[in-house]
């Protein structure tokens, strides 16, 4: 007989096994061969036949070798895993949790492979929401939350109003006890000429202690010493940027002198690159700082209010306590030194002590909070949408859950499993959302409308990533709760009862609640976007009161060194030269031209008191010195005429705005009338005769209104001040003459800096950038929200149709028309939509007042906007239900009955 053991040893590869195991395998298999051989012989087979049958036991030795080797390897690793898991579970506590988590994650990975579509739908929706939310959080964090980059930043304060006189500042320094340091900064632009092109440098004239407040360090030279502050400004420290740009970072500039506004100052140091002043945080960093002696006689006038004041509170002193001290102090000082501490109306000045971060951010904080609120609404809608999908999937998985329950899995275990799955979905979405946030923040910084300060600090850092993770976890729990609850109530017995799904009424209620919520939240966003859009349209259609096209303007710097007569001569020559440029139709000069400065702050000559026929009138009025061609150049709507040259020395000819004329002469035509005001000469108050009235001129921006203004001859009233801006109307494209204008100025004044050269149309477009930005952003949110709400409504209706398939089939079998079934489904959707619209309208009424600052001539509860938003949302929701409702009306009753 054959040696079976030898046969096995010859053909079977047992190198994977130890000797003892090899012997056993060989002996066992040899036994089997013997048994088969013996059985064959017992059945009457020949020895050859019996041997053939035995050999047929193992037709493929290689396959057996590989199977045994594989079993050996798998068994070893499974043993190891099982022992580890057993050990973890046996140890209880956090190890048990970790073991269960590992199992749940394995289960989740399996579910991804089985249902890739589910993930392909839910992850992008959530990623979009998380990405948008993380982007806006980064903005809010950089602007509102993150500490300013200074030591003891929470103790730094700023005084508001924006500027104060030096004597007032000195009084506060002497009498307050709440601060360990108070410093002032006078920010201005000074002329600097070195080489071919004159330029203006942003300059901060600072009192002692300023650099200490803001952690300044020198990169070369030194900072200010006490001696530097004696007398007129004569010592300067360069910013790092200006040092690099103007002097190539060369340290040899330290100790040299430069000319600023015609005055010689010595450069004693250059700042290190990390320094940023409060103005720098607001995007307007200085190029150079000059030491300012608070005792310098040139700045002692109480009306010369140029100083921004910063302070550091003493340890333990709150801003509220400091405010209280300031209120008491200003009342006392108003008694002792009224010429310094009382305003024009004779009232004590009110000073607000405000944390520096709040002062820098200002009203923009509300805008940022608004964006944060809007994006959180969007996030909630995305969560509701994903919850729909999870609930729908719950129906499909009911059997799986019931089977697992039958196999002994507890309700809590199943719920944990499903929550793990939903959190895994959310964290995956969070990962992609964080990637989207990088792009979002980049886009935000690039498109920043310019009215958000501290925007350089906006970035996706660890805090923003932590926010993304936290938001992902939270959303995973929120939309996973419903299916987890469902899983906890799954029963294995449902299998025997042949129940297709459990708790359908509860699930339907959940779907309906989600639909109503989505519609309501979307309507809030839509209403907000609608209000902004309405406001933007209003703003765009504001008539500025003059012909904006074909207007160019040049701000002339460096007028300080001219005498009054020199300025008059310069302007006369300049206007003649400019009018000779071929494409120039008209040219004029004014202190400021429209849109040169925009916003609520006024720069120039302000008067309040006027007398008409002996009666006093108080009207806050800007006085604008202009040359006689100003209105023709502007293309303004002028009634009456302009003066010719300076007119009668005794009576001042003036053009006034319609708003001023209505204040002083409400019931008669102002042309030809006279009033007293402006200033006094040796004969008493000046008499002004109105020769013309101009209407609707928006000088300070489209949203600033047409304010009371008196236009007076520049030659008489404008020449004494170094404020000069050239305005030019062209026959062609104004941008083409800008270089000619520069050259014309430099031909008359070679070293004159020209800090602001623009076309008025460009400036108008810039004014619309911020409103357009916010309108677009909120509109995008609203559009996405509506799309999600429509998708959620569609899905919920579809689910309802499937759930009621049997009932609808019976109705159809009993004779119900298609139209009546369609009507039934649409009435259901209509009810949900109506409820959502009502709740959304209430929500809008409560929240749209946060938009007030951003709205122009539109109230936060504008009826038209509300109405349009409600109708639009209702139409979108109804349209989304049409398709599933039509499907319901086409249910074949025979098919339904056959299935049952």
């Amino acid at each position: 007989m054959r040696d079976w053991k030898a046969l096995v040893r010859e053909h079977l590869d047992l190198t994977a096994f130890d000797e003892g195991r090899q012997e056993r395998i060989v002996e066992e298999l040899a036994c089997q061969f013997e048994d088969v051989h013996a059985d064959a012989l017992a059945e009457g087979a020949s020895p050859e036949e019996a041997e053939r049958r035995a050999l047929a036991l193992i037709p493929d030795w290689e396959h057996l070798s590989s199977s045994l080797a594989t079993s050996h390897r798998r068994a070893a690793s499974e043993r190891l895993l099982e022992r580890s898991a057993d050990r973890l579970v046996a140890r209880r506590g956090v190890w048990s949790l970790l073991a269960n988590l590992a199992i749940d994650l394995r289960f989740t990975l399996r579910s991804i492979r089985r249902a890739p579509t589910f993930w392909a739908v839910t992850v992008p929706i959530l990623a979009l929401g998380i990405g948008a939310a993380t982007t806006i959080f980064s903005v809010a964090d950089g602007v509102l939350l993150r500490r300013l980059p200074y030591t003891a930043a929470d103790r730094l304060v700023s005084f508001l109003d924006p500027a104060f006189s030096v004597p007032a500042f000195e009084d506060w320094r002497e009498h307050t006890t709440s601060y360990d340091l108070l410093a002032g900064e006078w920010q201005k632009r000074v002329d600097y000429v070195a080489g071919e092109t004159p330029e203006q440098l942003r300059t901060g004239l600072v009192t002692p202690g300023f650099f200490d407040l803001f952690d300044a360090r020198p990169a070369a030279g030194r900072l200010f010493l006490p001696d530097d502050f004696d007398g007129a400004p004569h010592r300067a420290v360069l910013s790092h940027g200006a040092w690099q740009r103007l002097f190539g970072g060369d340290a040899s500039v330290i100790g040299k002198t430069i000319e600023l506004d015609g005055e010689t100052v010595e450069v004693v140091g250059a700042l290190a690159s990390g320094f940023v002043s409060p103005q720098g945080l607001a995007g307007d960093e200085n190029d150079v700082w000059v030491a300012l002696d608070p005792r310098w006689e040139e700045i002692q006038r109480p009306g010369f209010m140029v100083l921004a004041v910063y302070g550091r509170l003493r340890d333990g002193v709150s801003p509220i306590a400091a405010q209280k001290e300031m209120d008491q102090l200003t009342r006392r000082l108003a008694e002792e030194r009224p010429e310094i501490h009382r305003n024009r109306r004779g009232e004590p000045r009110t000073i607000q002590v405000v944390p520096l971060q709040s002062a820098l951010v200002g009203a923009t904080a509300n805008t940022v909070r608004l964006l944060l609120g809007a994006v959180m609404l969007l996030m909630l809608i995305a969560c509701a949408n994903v919850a729909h999908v999870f609930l729908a999937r719950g129906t499909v998985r009911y059997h799986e859950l019931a089977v697992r329950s039958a196999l002994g899995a507890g309700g809590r275990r199943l719920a944990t499993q499903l929550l793990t799955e939903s959190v895994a979905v959310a964290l995956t979405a969070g990962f992609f959302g964080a990637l989207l946030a990088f792009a979002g923040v980049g886009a935000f910084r690039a498109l920043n409308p310019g009215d958000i300060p501290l925007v350089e600090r906006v970035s996706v850092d660890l805090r923003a990533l932590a926010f993304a993770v936290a938001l992902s976890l939270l959303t995973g729990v929120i939309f996973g709760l419903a299916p987890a609850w469902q899983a906890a109530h799954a029963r294995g017995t449902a299998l025997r009862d042949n129940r297709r799904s459990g708790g359908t009424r509860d699930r339907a209620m959940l779907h309906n609640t989600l639909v109503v919520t989505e519609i309501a939240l979307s309507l809030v966003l839509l209403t907000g976007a609608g209000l902004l859009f309405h406001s933007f349209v209003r703003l765009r259609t504001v008539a500025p009161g003059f012909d904006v096209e074909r207007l160019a303007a040049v701000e002339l710097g460096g007028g300080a060194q001219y005498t009054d007569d020199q300025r008059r001569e310069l302007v006369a020559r300049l206007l003649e030269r400019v009018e000779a440029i071929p494409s120039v139709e008209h040219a004029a000069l004014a202190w400021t031209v429209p849109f040169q400065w925009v916003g609520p702050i006024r720069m120039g000559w302000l008067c309040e008191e006027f007398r008409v026929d002996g009666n006093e009138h108080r009207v806050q009025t800007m006085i604008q010195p202009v040359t006689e061609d100003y209105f023709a150049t502007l293309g303004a709507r002028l009634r009456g005429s302009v003066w010719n040259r300076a007119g009668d020395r005794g009576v001042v000819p003036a053009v006034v705005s319609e708003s001023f004329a209505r204040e002083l002469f409400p019931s008669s035509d102002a042309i030809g009338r006279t009033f007293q005001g402006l200033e006094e000469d040796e004969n008493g108050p000046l008499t002004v005769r109105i020769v013309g009235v101009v209407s609707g001129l928006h000088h300070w921006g489209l949203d600033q209104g047409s304010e009371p203004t008196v236009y007076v001859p520049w030659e008489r009233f404008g020449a004494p001040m170094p404020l000069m801006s050239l305005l030019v109307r062209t026959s062609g494209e104004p941008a083409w003459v800008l270089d000619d204008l520069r050259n014309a100025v430099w031909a008359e004044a070679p070293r004159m800096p020209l800090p602001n050269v623009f076309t008025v149309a460009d400036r108008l477009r810039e004014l619309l950038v911020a409103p357009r930005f916010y309108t677009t952003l909120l509109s995008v949110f609203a559009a996405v929200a509506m799309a999600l709400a429509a998708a959620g409504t569609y899905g919920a209706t579809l689910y309802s149709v499937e759930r009621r398939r049997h009932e609808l089939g019976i109705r159809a079998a009993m004779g119900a028309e298609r139209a009546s079934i369609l009507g039934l489904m649409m009435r259901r959707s209509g009810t949900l939509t109506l409820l959502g619209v009502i709740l959304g309208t209430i929500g809008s009424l409560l929240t749209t007042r946060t938009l007030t600052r951003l709205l122009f001539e539109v109230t936060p509860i504008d009826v038209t906007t509300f109405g349009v938003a409600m109708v639009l949302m209702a139409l979108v929701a109804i349209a989304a239900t049409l398709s599933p409702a039509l499907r319901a009306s086409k249910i074949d009753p025979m098919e339904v009955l056959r299935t049952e």
Partner: protein
Amino acid sequence: MFSPEMKKGSVELMVLALIEDEARHGYEIGKLIESRSDGQIQFNVSSLYPVLYRMEEKGWIKGRWVERPGERRRCHYALTAEGRRVLARERRTWEAFQIAVNQVVGLSNA
């Protein structure tokens, strides 16, 4: 004949069930599967032996050499305590699986 996938999914359950009351050797197990299934299910040594090896490595069954009078010695497999637990669990799973599949394909319970 049943597909290899269906056989593969049930062989461990069958082996555990067959040695529940009595220890048996590999050849006997294979013959019993064939006879009790009326020849519908057959496993050859190449298929069955690696399964026995794996189950023993996992600790569900234990092989022991037994020599009976007049017979050569053979390796008999018996259930371990762990094996009994696994058998009970696999029986429940098989039952639930049967019911679930029946519901899907529309067969009523017997």
